[in-house]
């Protein structure tokens, strides 16, 4: 059983704060710059989600869609995803590393070789947005063999039955989607998120991170009062978009926005 992610949450709890989970798409805007950005982000966050670019990101809003398109157009490959994970692991032994993306990429590579290489690259967990609990058997064995946590999503539309099902197989943490929508939309009502988290906690002792739509330190702060972690994705990717021709500005803009998020989450 992989304990790296639980160590991360235990450390944050000890410091009386929620974990900051940061997402960037691997290879965006190109592999070389992406590596710099990921290393900079890893300095600021507790868990880094490394997005695997995909041609058809049907659960993502315009910001992360564009990130995937940039990465693929710049020639990013799955091997670059592993390479970036490895660099992050070498630089930050204590950070949690999660690969996030769509099923067809690991399915086409083969879940077994995918999981093996992910593990060798220092990855702790895998989150595939289009593999719900019902279909998770397709990759569960490979992830278990290679000691990778299978992270499950829950959403505002998840019934108690579905929560129980996801809780029975989830490892590492639960990723709660704050809104019925795509990445980068407006965050859901805090009260609704809080109520749903209370319900989910009846079914699992795993930490629960809240993501989709968290764009400001104030939002992160309010989620951090009851969530175990806050996921920021589109907002970090936007730091790339708004500094697209200047690598140094990209890195410093990402660093300052991530550090502002982290500061806001201290309880």
């Amino acid at each position, binding site marked *: 059983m992989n304990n790296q992610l639980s160590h991360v949450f235990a450390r944050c709890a000890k410091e009386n704060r929620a974990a900051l989970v940061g997402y960037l798409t691997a290879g965006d805007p190109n592999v070389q710059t992406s590596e710099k950005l990921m290393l900079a982000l890893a300095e600021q966050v507790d868990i880094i989600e490394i997005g695997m670019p*995909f*041609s*058809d*990101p*049907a*659960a*993502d*809003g315009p910001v992360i*869609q564009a990130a995937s*398109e940039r990465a*693929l157009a710049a020639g990013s*490959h*799955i091997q670059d995803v592993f390479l970036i994970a490895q660099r992050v692991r070498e630089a930050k032994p204590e950070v949690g590393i999660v690969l996030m993306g*769509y*099923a*067809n*990429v*690991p*399915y*086409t*590579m083969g879940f077994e070789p995918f999981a093996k290489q992910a593990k060798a690259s220092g990855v702790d967990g895998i989150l595939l*947005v*289009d*593999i*719900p609990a*019902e*279909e998770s058997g*397709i990759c569960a064995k490979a992830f278990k063999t290679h000691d990778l946590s299978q992270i*499950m*999503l*829950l*959403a*505002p*539309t*998840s*019934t108690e039955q*579905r929560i129980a099902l*996801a809780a029975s197989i989830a490892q590492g943490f639960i990723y709660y*989607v704050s*809104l*019925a*929508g*795509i990445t980068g*939309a407006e965050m859901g009502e805090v009260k609704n998120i809080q109520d749903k988290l209370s319900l989910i906690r009846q079914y699992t002792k795993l930490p629960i991170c809240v993501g989709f739509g968290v764009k400001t330190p104030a939002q992160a702060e309010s989620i951090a009062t009851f969530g175990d972690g806050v996921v920021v994705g589109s907002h970090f990717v936007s730091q790339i978009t708004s500094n697209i021709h200047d690598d140094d500005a990209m890195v410093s803009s990402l660093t300052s926005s991530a550090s502002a998020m982290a500061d806001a989450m201290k309880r």
Partner: protein
Amino acid sequence: MDYDLDIKHAPDEGGHFGKYGGRFAAETLMQPLKEIEDAFFEAWADPEFHKERLDLLKNYVGRMTPLYHAKQLTNEVGGAQIYLKREDLNHTGAHKVNNTIGQALLARRMGKKKVIAETGAGQHGVATATVAAMFNMQCDIYMGREDIRRQAPNVFRMKLLGANVIAVDSGTGTLKDAVNEALRVWVASCEDTYYIFGTAAGPHPFPLMVRQFHTVIGQEARKQCLEQAGRLPDVAVACVGGGSNAMGLLHPLWDDESVKLVAVEAGGHGLETGEHAASLAKGQPGIIHGSLSYVLDDEEGQISADAHSISAGLDYPGVGPELAHMMDIGRLDLDSATDDEALEAFEMLTKAEGIIPALESSHALAAGIRIASTMKPEEIVLINLSGRGDKDLNTVMDKFGFDVESEDE
């Protein structure tokens, strides 16, 4: 006619046909999909649902559609007798309306006031906009910008019918991107919006449901063939994009072991060029748009941007999971027709029989004619003429270099 309402060759509880299918969807959509599944099975067991559905299919759509013995075409080809199932004579000009009637009735039962749909050639968009107008539902159609350019008459038809047509610029601006965009919109609006999926693909229950709504095609054709020819066809042929007209014609013939079932994929510029839409012949198993099936993608799982067909309705890099299953177990034969072969068949049918077929259906015709030419006159080839060609006249005019000015001189 009396239709058989038994669900044959049903998938497992999770919507798997063999190892294909399933429900590979975002968590947010899992419950809405389950609600559609429950509503579908409940409706399917309700005689009132079928009474209304079949009444609309008869009096609004014009079913049953004829089975036509194409004697002139048969003579020209010089082989097996060619019979055409005339889905082109349906209201709106293609088979698509069989499905949109069924799903719109379902949406109404579920209390949804708004429907959305993706469209490639525009036939499914028109069929959806049509039923939305009739049922007084708000309707948004997602269509790739490239397809909007290719299918202007259908875009105008949808607008006339009161639908909003929303151009999709992401990705390659074709059908797969329109599906992605419709899924994104549906995730955020599933509370009051029903997604009328247009083909026998996507997450469970769409492959099963769309197939069931289209089996009227094959059930009628089977009965008509027995009545007219006194026997079943030897070969049944349908074109395949996602697979809705193919499942409609072929599924009811599955258990007639003597009938060879042929799926014709779009060969585009030729299967060897990479510019085609032959997912079953040239793709590999993959997960796209909610189900596991055959996909045209690269060795890293990126979906092909090179999928190509002259017919926008076949220009799709995936295919319905049940067709993948039928192929695997040996109950489906594959064939393909290139852009040029489809155009040739288009012209041949038009001149021989006075029937202008859709470019999609022209692929089935091209393969069907080729197959018939190798067979004996006492044998029968049944071809699904899934739609009419009016919408394709601009494309064909370009291809044939027709210029009205020079005709005048």
